[in-house]
């Protein structure tokens, strides 16, 4: 071989080695990953956890149906730093995310509160989302409709291609087919929380994706302190009116369990929930006679109904005439929320303090000053 060729060869090898070394040195530097972390303290929420490491965060969503396994784990790494090596297993998300997809209006409410509505570029069931900004964005063509929350279109999702998609997990997973789109699915189980504040506390979970942890905490603290203040007002009341909730569904009445979140509301509002001693965290079925026997003389009756128009006592009576026998009916003490107009299940999640205030205002009139009811009012 000629000398010049040898030189070129050596030179190439040297450059290659140098290059490698540079790359490797970066890795080596980051390899010193700190294994120390802090756990974010959650006061009410049980279904998720946040662990903060030096260069990343681990967000875990618990598996309500199998407590031995986690439902999902997300590794949040800031965009500003290079991706650390040896990250734990999980779905890696670079933060702050720059585009998001929502399948329920809860997601939109959270985004709104966190001030990131403009990042939404994909939405399911647009008709249930009540933010005007969303409408504007749709008009501008910046948001793609991706189907219904139960049935998200793979193609539409791929077209919109948000960085993450918020979804609600169910026992029989309806989102498996979306994995092929490559869009990370962020599972939101806030509907499984039994405490109203637990549901609201999920704002911390959401906030992490936008690096708005501080804002999220601030918002939640404001909600929780308001809520706790209201609880303190009713805690020592001696008079606690009796209350029950729900309606017949076919020939069954699904009554909220004693450990469910409606029951929590009743307790915190200073009412005596007639089924408070039931252990269920969800609802359980009763026949009409049993409800009738126990609740015939209850002071208040809470009804939630999605009704197009003005719901009235006449409606109740027409549905099932024996409803008119309840004392709460006769004394016109039905606490009513029309979920068609008052977003109890979605926006209400972020405003448990207002819901509580509504309840207290009706159950203990005069206790609150100048409260404008937003969700609940006495049925006319």
């Amino acid at each position, binding site marked *: 071989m000629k000398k010049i060729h040898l030189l070129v060869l050596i030179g190439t090898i040297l450059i290659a080695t140098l290059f490698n070394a540079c790359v490797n040195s970066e890795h080596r530097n980051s390899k010193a990953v700190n294994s120390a972390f802090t756990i974010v303290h959650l006061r009410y929420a049980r279904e998720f956890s946040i662990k903060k490491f030096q260069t990343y965060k681990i967000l875990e969503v618990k598996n309500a149906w199998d407590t031995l396994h986690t439902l999902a784990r997300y590794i949040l790494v800031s965009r500003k730093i290079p991706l650390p090596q040896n990250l734990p297993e999980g779905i890696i998300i670079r933060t702050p995310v720059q585009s998001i997809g929502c399948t329920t209006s809860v997601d939109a409410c959270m985004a709104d509160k966190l001030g990131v509505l403009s990042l939404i570029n994909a939405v399911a069931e647009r008709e249930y989302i009540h933010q005007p900004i969303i409408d504007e964005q749709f008009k501008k063509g910046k948001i793609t409709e991706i189907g219904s929350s139960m049935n998200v279109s793979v193609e539409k999702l791929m077209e919109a291609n948000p960085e993450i998609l918020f979804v609600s997990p169910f026992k029989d997973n309806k989102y498996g087919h979306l994995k092929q789109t490559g869009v990370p699915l962020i599972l939101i189980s806030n509907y499984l929380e039994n405490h109203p504040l637990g549901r609201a506390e999920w704002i911390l979970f959401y906030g992490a994706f936008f690096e708005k942890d501080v804002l999220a905490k601030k918002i939640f603290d404001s909600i929780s302190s308001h809520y706790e203040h209201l609880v303190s007002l009713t805690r020592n009341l001696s008079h606690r009116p009796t209350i029950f909730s729900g309606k017949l569904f076919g020939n069954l009445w699904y009554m909220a369990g004693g450990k469910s979140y409606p029951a929590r509301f009743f307790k915190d509002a200073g009412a005596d929930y007639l089924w408070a001693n039931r252990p269920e965290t969800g609802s359980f079925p009763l026949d009409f*006679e049993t409800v*009738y026997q126990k609740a015939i003389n209850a002071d208040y009756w809470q009804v939630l109904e999605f009704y197009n128009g003005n719901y009235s006592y006449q409606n109740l009576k027409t549905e*099932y005439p*024996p409803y008119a026998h309840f004392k709460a009916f006769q004394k016109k003490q039905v606490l009513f929320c029309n979920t068609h107009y008052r977003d109890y299940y979605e926006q209400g999640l972020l405003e448990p303090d207002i819901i509580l205030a509504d309840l207290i205002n009706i159950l203990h009139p005069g206790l609150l000053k100048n409260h404008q009811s937003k969700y609940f009012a006495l049925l006319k």
Partner: protein
Amino acid sequence: MRKGQIIFLLFSISFILFGLNLLLGPVTIPARTLFSLIKGSVVDDLSRNILLQIRFPQSVTAILAGAGLATAGLLMQTLFRNPLAGPDVLGITSGASLGVAVITMFTGAWIVYMPQLGVLSLILSAMAGAMVVMLTILALSQRIKDNAMLLITGLMMGYISSAVVGVLTVYSSAENLQAFTLWGLGTFSSVSWDRMNYFAGVTIIALFMAMLLPKPLNMLLMGERYASNLGLRVERSRFIVLFCAGLLTAVVTAFCGPIAFIGVATPHITRLAIGGSDHRILLPANMLIGASVALLCNLIARMPGVEGALPINAVTSLMGAPIVIWVVLTRHKRKYL
């Protein structure tokens, strides 16, 4: 046993079951309270309301629905000369459901609860749906002589109706969907006193109509040729029988939702009990047995010992499906149909 004695016995059974339905339920009401109420004495409000507003209308509904469906089933089994014919099996109930679904799409789900005009529309639309399916099955039965094939066609009609309902629900609003779903569960507790007039009125008229048909039914049992030779105007009679069966199915389905198996199974119980095929005794006996079956199912559905209640269709299916299987297994030994 003579005819009169049989009817009396069946009536007594129905009466006892009726009494039990009043007496027994999730809330314990002592017998003497019931007797006091009957006598007209004062009784506590809770018991009075439960007995009069809940259990009484529910039992009356069960009686009428049971008698109605059983009669529809008997009429269909004779008309099609098929032991497995029945309102649910031949898709008539699904047709009625489709009728109800269509009308709820247009008027809103509350029609299911409305008195007067709403009720009329409800019955008519259920009728329309039931008759469309019924007439289709009748036309097909001219061409399909094989009983088993006819049943399969009926099942397919049921599937078609359900599919159309499925499509409609995609376009319906959430509240319509929910109300319709509720209705679709089937129950005897949906008819309260204010709607009882319509339900009882139409059902009793239709039952009365059926009671006028033993002679044509006996003749149809012989086959159309023999029936026509004995002087029966076969086409007209078939239509009347069909209309009566369709009306009964429609009205019960419209008010109570789809109730399975009472139509198919009861005529077999009746024939076993009576030991004959003469419709002069079969018709009234079948009505009473149908009422008893419905009352019994209602009792079971309501009394699992806990505070819940079983869906009525679960109970009727558990009772009825074994009977249908038994009918299939004994088809070679059977001396009728």
